[in-house]
């Protein structure tokens, strides 16, 4: 069986999961620096305990460590997401009004996201940006799939209400 202590296994685990760990912490607290630190600390811990953590458990191990690091320690800041403009370039035939409208919409979305409870925002963004399935998010958060669906449902509802100004 491969061992996390082996350099190539460890590097593979890092490359597969570090980005999501980073995003996960960032969605929760909106602090980029802390998210970078969380990645470092989570994987150092994994390295130190590589003999006892199997490669299969490594994923949930790093999420758990990263999550526990800042539990109740830092207050959520504003989550500043970037907006992909690639497709905007593709669609130069879009009318200026349309582009303007889309820009406005994104601002509204940002504000709405920041107003969400931390767990709803994290769930929503892990799904929308990282493409995580509800089951995966449930595993990361240590809750049931049903709870994640509930968070997702509430997140969509709140976002739409806020954006549409209902």
């Amino acid at each position, binding site marked *: 069986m491969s061992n996390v202590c082996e350099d190539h296994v460890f590097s593979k685990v890092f490359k597969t999961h570090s980005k999501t760990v*980073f995003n996960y912490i960032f969605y929760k607290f909106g602090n980029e620096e802390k998210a970078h630190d969380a990645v470092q600390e989570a994987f150092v811990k994994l*390295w130190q305990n590589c003999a006892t953590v199997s490669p299969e458990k490594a994923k949930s191990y790093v999420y758990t460590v990263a999550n526990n690091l800042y539990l109740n320690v830092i207050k959520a800041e504003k989550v500043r997401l*970037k907006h992909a403009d690639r497709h905007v370039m593709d669609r130069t035939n879009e009318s200026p009004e349309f582009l303007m409208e*889309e820009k406005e*919409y994104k601002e509204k979305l940002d504000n709405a996201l920041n107003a969400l409870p931390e767990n709803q925002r994290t769930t929503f*963004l892990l799904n929308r940006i990282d493409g995580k399935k509800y089951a995966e998010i449930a595993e990361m958060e240590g809750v049931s799939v049903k709870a994640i669906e*509930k968070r997702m449902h509430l997140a969509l509802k709140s976002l739409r209400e806020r954006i549409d100004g209902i």
Partner: protein
Amino acid sequence: MQENHLAKWLSGELSDEELREFENSEAFPSYQKLKEISSKLMAPDFDTEKALKRLKDEHIANAPKVISLNPFKKFLRVAAVIAVLLTGTYFYVSTLNDKVATEFAERSEVVLPDDSEIFLNADSQIAYSKKNWDHKRNVDLKGEAFFKVAKGKKFTVSTDHGTVAVLGTQFNVENRKGFFEVTCYEGLVSVTHNNEEIKLPAGNSFLVINGKIVSARKPNGTLPSWMNNESSFESIPLKYVLSELERQFNIKVSTKNIDTNLLFTGSFNNTDLNMSLKSISTPSKTRFTIDGDNVLFYAGNTQQ
């Protein structure tokens, strides 16, 4: 519409009917737009390679790895088993009795830890615990032995015929098949035979032949005769005399037309076989022939 239908819609888990119903709802265009735009969101840049390099440079190079102690634990486990076995063996061996035994035509002298002496006659065996000797002076005896017991705590000789207990004295115990004799040469000896205790003062013998207590002769001198290389008997069935002869000379004795229950009184020398045979044959009015290690006694009037 099912519970959490917005989440189900986003993950494409709504049924066709539910989807149609949702698509016809007033709020649908808003959700559709939210779905579209949110899929274009991006998290801040994260350079995986850079982060990995930082991790390796800053942390892993210095971080002590938790090293599994399993191999050492395994070693400890084996060591513990060996230690237990060794200790167990030590205690087992140390509780084993010390044994001294003599073969036919052999004698031995044993000095016990308290300087008591035991002289073993031929084909005899004693066992005692050297380690426990200070607490319990006990000797298991098979065969015959003369004891010179140093003064001290109770000294016991255990045999399958009974127990002999003394404080400090000199006595002889003969414990053979069907034959049990205790002779006290000094002090007082207590003999327990069939749960009955008999006090045996110096100069007295206690004799049991085939389970019957027989009144025995008074011993001559201060030592059993075998200590002076002589086996002496007084009103002892001939078969026990012949058994003693076998033991002293390591020979095989057989008889023909002789009643070996007849009582024999006399003695034989333990060093000279021919003389001993004569010493037995003359008073018992028998004859004998020798063939190597075999001796045949036969009635005087029997034709050979």
